[in-house]
């Protein structure tokens, strides 16, 4: 019962944050220097098109009315027309979203699998030279600009060794019958490898450090000592009790990492010409394609906010102290 209430209030909070971000975005694009109409109307459109858009977004009306129209349009999923593509923004965004999600999830799953194991291992080897050497190395990966790491990998593995293609998602001229067909092709995976590796190398530090410090804390807990007094095997003590408990916050952090990763994608997608939301945002801003920029921004914000919520729910679900309250 109280669970439902907690989830309900959390959803309310989500709606509030969403509204606030949408409003901030509206103000940013309307109050920016220059002609406010430029946010929606491409000067190269025909006069007729321009007038139609003026009416659709109420650009001839006072600001507060524009705001209401803007909210109404958003609720209907109407994001406007992209200047460059002469197509609805929503369409373009949903075309790019899968690419971004595939890149994000594949790199994060690798990063988390590695980070969790390595973190548990380093906690176990606390004080050893392996740990002494590994921790500064991990911190160094956190200090790298992601795009620079991408550049180095690109220079070595693509331009120098020629093992991987330099960018995009498929070889020029390659045709696929469908998305599934594309995503499972060798071609696609070869293109995915370097950007995913870049993001994974950068991201593994978080789960690794988190897992390690949680393990060190949990190993001090009474129930771990009790497990030893029970004569349980070292494996059972470390894995079933210590690691199982230490894993809780790490799993939660996965959802938050997805949100962060989407932001990092902005640069890495640009390095690898990966047709995703982040690169589109950069290109749209650079080309003053404001409707598209606004749409891409909103989509990224939506995922970030939703992932923050998911993190909370995941924690509640995974921790019996909350799920079985």
């Amino acid at each position, binding site marked *: 019962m109280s669970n439902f209430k907690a989830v309900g209030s959390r959803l309310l909070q989500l709606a509030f944050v969403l509204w606030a971000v949408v409003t901030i975005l509206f103000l940013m694009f309307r109050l920016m220097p220059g002609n406010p109409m430029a946010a929606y109307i491409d000067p190269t459109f025909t006069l007729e098109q321009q007038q139609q858009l003026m009416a659709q977004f109420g650009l001839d009306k006072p600001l507060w009315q524009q705001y209401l129209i803007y909210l109404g349009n958003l609720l209907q999923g109407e994001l406007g027309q992209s200047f460059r593509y002469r197509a609805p923004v929503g369409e373009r965004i949903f075309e790019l979203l899968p690419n971004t999600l595939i890149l994000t999830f594949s790199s994060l799953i690798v990063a988390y699998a590695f980070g969790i194991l390595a973190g548990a291992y380093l906690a176990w080897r606390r004080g050893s030279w392996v740990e002494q050497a590994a921790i500064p190395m991990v*911190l*160094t990966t956190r*200090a790298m600009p992601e795009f620079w*790491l991408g550049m180095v990998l690109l220079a070595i593995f693509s*331009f120098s060794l020629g093992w991987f293609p330099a960018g995009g998602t498929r070889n020029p001229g390659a045709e696929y019958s469908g998305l599934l067909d594309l995503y499972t092709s060798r071609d696609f995976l070869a293109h995915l490898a370097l950007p995913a590796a870049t993001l994974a190398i950068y991201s593994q530090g978080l789960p690794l450090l988190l897992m390690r410090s949680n393990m060190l804390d949990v190993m001090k807990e009474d129930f771990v000592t009790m497990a030893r007094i029970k004569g349980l095997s070292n494996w059972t003590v470390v894995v079933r009790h210590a690691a199982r408990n230490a894993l809780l916050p790490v799993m939660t952090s996965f959802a938050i990492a997805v949100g962060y990763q989407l*932001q990092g994608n902005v640069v890495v997608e640009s390095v690898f010409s990966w047709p995703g939301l982040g690169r589109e945002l*950069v290109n749209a801003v650079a080309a003053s394609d404001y409707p598209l920029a606004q749409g891409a921004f909103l989509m990224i*914000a939506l995922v*970030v906010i939703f992932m923050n919520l998911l993190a909370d729910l995941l924690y509640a679900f995974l921790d019996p102290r909350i799920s079985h309250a």
Partner: protein
Amino acid sequence: MPEVAAVKTSVSEAVVPEVAAPRRPNIIARFFRTLRLPVNDPFAVAGLVIYLIFIATAIFADSIATHDPTEILYTPSYDLAADLRPGQDGFLMGTTSLGRDVFSQLIHGSRSALLIGVTAAFMVALIGSIIGLVAGYFGRWVDAVLMRLADIAFGIPFLPFVIVLAAFLKPSIWNVVLAMALVLWRDTARVIRSQVLTLRTRGYVEAARVAGSSDFRIILRHIAPNILPLSFLYGSIAIGWAILTEASISFLGFGDPDSISWGYMLQDAFASQALAKQAYYWFVPPGVCIILVVSAGFFITRGYENILFPKLNR
């Protein structure tokens, strides 16, 4: 008698008498204790040394640099000095495709990094600490409002926000500082707030309140000194964030075209096909500089963490 092998656990019995509770802190003493350099941690020392070199380089950039970083240079035979390898024609680290000296750019890049890093860190730590302090101390609706603001800040994707901001405002290195001040205070504020919440229940704060001290006085004398170390910690982490963010923004082409930064160098190299030309001398050094400065911040923080949170010391 030989030692007996036994299963070891970390739970130790309290044999040694507890250390006496810390005395109420004196602001000044506390501050200096905080700044005590973590000299027994080799990594922290390495971090401090990197910082010192970094700062010195930024200050004396003009004397260290061999050329004007934006000047287009020519070889003695009056050819454009483009894409020269390190050492060729006396260019220490080679030249860019436009004929500019990589080494001089690298040296001058430390200036914008230092400027952005320090100002952004200061802003983030200051705003975050004040919001956290006020929210935690006054509680109730003040807290509710401020923490909802933090929720919103957490809902804003940071890098896209900086990009949009940088595109709308005039290109300037201050965009990054502004964006960080607008968004990144959230992490510091949350941590400081929870710290204040625990501090508020401490006996001496309670006592000061009962004794009729004003809120301002309690915050200044009893709470602020205790959260200063945390603000400091988050500030040092923000230095790294600022430098990385500036690099990303410049790399994407939204940076200040008039100032040489490491991010700008990387963007220049990337756009000039330095990767295909295998011009490692051009795009590796700026990245290494960023890593050195940012990780130096991490190492120093870690050293301070050991002092601030002795629990992690083992």
